């Protein structure tokens, strides 16, 4: 039996004791900003492009180069302590010239703060941004989904592959604006491709511990496996 955990109370780092209240009559742009935005701009003046307050939430637009550093600082710094990653997602606008934005929703439980960090990826360049998996493990599947839906590569992610669509999905990245609602292929073709997918894919060499004893297998079996024969079928 493990020893019981100590209870962590959110807001433990706050000095004033005002209880949080439901937002009422939130202003479009005039609400007070999150102090972390100013602190972030002060610490990384070259990376932070601008800060915006919209409907009571603070949004910080940053440049893509030093994302991991900034996130690490937001996580580790004792005045920030953004220990909870709510969401990683992306937004593509209907206007084709506007870049794709990758959005991180961060919460600081000790300070009871909410921050939105955004970076913009122009569409004519590579859609790549660094992964924050090393800081928050919740980014694991969130980034995989972002990749699946938008095609944004998260460098440093341990296992970036499709999560919601099947691995051999060929129609594209569904949430892009140039992807039509009903898909690119005809219904019959979609059905045909869906039925042709291998439902046992991912019984693959990388997953199986057959890979441990690869050298012990007979030579012809090794040949067959290395040519892509699937085990487990």
């Amino acid at each position: 039996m493990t020893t019981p955990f100590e209870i962590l109370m959110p807001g433990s780092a706050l000095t004033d004791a005002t209880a949080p209240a439901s937002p009422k009559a939130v202003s479009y742009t005039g609400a007070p900003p999150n102090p972390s935005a100013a602190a972030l701009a002060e610490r990384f003046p070259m990376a932070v492009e601008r800060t915006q307050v919209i409907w009571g939430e603070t949004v910080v637009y940053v440049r893509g180069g030093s994302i991991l550093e900034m996130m690490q600082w937001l996580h580790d710094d004792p005045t920030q302590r953004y220990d909870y990653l709510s969401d990683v997602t992306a937004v593509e606008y209907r206007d084709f010239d506007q870049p794709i934005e990758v959005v991180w929703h961060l919460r600081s439980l000790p300070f009871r703060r909410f921050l939105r960090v955004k970076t913009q990826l122009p569409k004519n360049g590579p859609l790549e941004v660094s992964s924050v998996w090393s800081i928050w493990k919740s980014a694991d599947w969130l980034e995989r989904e972002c990749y699946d839906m938008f095609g944004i590569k998260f460098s440093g992610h341990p296992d970036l592959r499709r999560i919601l669509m099947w691995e051999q999905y060929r129609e594209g990245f569904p949430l892009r604006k140039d992807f039509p609602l009903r898909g690119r292929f005809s219904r019959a073709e979609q059905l045909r491709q869906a039925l042709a997918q291998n439902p046992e894919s991912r019984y693959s060499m990388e997953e199986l511990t057959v890979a441990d004893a690869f050298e012990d297998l007979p030579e012809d079996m090794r040949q067959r496996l290395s040519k892509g024969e699937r085990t487990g079928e």
Partner: protein
Amino acid sequence: MGLIAPPEHKTVSYVPESQEGWVATRLDFLVNWSRANSLWPMPFGTACCAIEFMATAASRFDLARFGMERMSFSPRQADVLICAGRVPFKLAPIIRRIWQQMPQPKWAISMGACASSGGMFDNYAVVQGIDTIIPVDVYVPGCPPRPEGLIHGIRLLQEKVMNERSADNRIRQEMLPDPSSELYIPPSAINELGEPFGNSVHQNRSAP
């Protein structure tokens, strides 16, 4: 859209079951009665309809009075596949495989709008009706159908089972296209840009 060339009308010759006598009809009745009143469902529940299916199996709308309380999650022991919920394309080979694993006699109920026709999900991800993948006997509309609706569907299936005849050798065949059937359309006549089958009703699409 749909057909390019109209199908040639053929007459279907139907051999009457002239070999049936009194014993055969009584035997048929016994077999059909026992099948209809002990249909073991295979609940292929995916989404909200599965919750209504569970509610139908619970104590208010009791499925046990129809002999269906024994949910068989193994397809090998199931009689009727109740597809409750939306089926995305990723799940299509799974349901096809489950259907193939079920031994005859087997029936399928498509429960809910999404299983019957894709429902409100007319998009890249959802199969527009499981009848494109497996042959369906009863469609139960609703989103989700009320338990009474599902029970009505089950009663319809029971009627269908009761009206089967053992001498009819066409009902237990797996669905392969039969060129001599009047419903057959050769693949060359099917325009795939519209429907999965060339003869299904073209749904009027509202603007995306």
